[in-house]
């Protein structure tokens, strides 16, 4: 069973479109994250949710809107896609109180053309 799963794995879309990436974890974790990794491999945190509540929003354009319907899911919706949004997006989860490892999803490679 996959611990953290993201869909889709690849996403190619045109500028101006709206798209969503879904993430689910079956580890019983209470904290979930979205990261953006650009071509230089910099792994930048975008959002952090704890028990469905937004905790961290790292100066991400408001075209990006995360939604957490329950503790096991954290989706990312992106409006009016721009060329600069092309990157690999990773979802991750961890347990906040145990300071244990974070598990990452396989990543979604978004290409905006």
């Amino acid at each position, binding site marked *: 069973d996959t611990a953290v799963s993201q869909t889709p794995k690849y996403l190619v879309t045109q500028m101006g479109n709206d798209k969503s990436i879904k993430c689910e974890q079956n580890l019983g974790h209470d*904290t979930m994250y979205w990261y953006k990794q650009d071509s230089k491999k910099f792994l930048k945190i975008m959002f*952090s*949710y704890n028990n469905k509540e937004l*905790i961290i929003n790292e100066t991400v354009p408001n075209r990006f809107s995360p939604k957490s319907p329950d503790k096991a899911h954290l989706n990312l919706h992106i409006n009016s896609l721009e060329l600069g949004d092309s990157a690999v997006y990773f979802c991750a989860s961890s347990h906040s109180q145990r*300071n244990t490892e974070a598990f990452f999803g396989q990543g979604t490679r978004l290409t905006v053309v």
Partner: protein
Amino acid sequence: QQPVQSPQAVILREGEDAVINCSSSKALYSVHWYRQKHGEAPVFLMILLKGGEQKGHEKISASFNEKKQQSSLYLTASQLSYSGTYFCGPTPRSNDYKLSFGAGTTVTVRA
């Protein structure tokens, strides 16, 4: 605020050693280390929770100096499988909801 890692990249021959340093501008509670192979997701290596504590994973070990707000990752007798990008993720407190990484260090091990 992201941690600062050095060096940015290192090339090794099999069997050589390397050290990757990670420093933070904030007081630290713990430091996570992850490795990401090309085209894959980052994978957990270890967490260091106490100052001065060393942990190991295969022939990869790490130390944590909370006074200096630094951690170092030691690759000993490197193997081809050690190639990848290494990320440190320092956390300032025990229930931190922000696992933040830096730019990483790319390690290439050649035969």
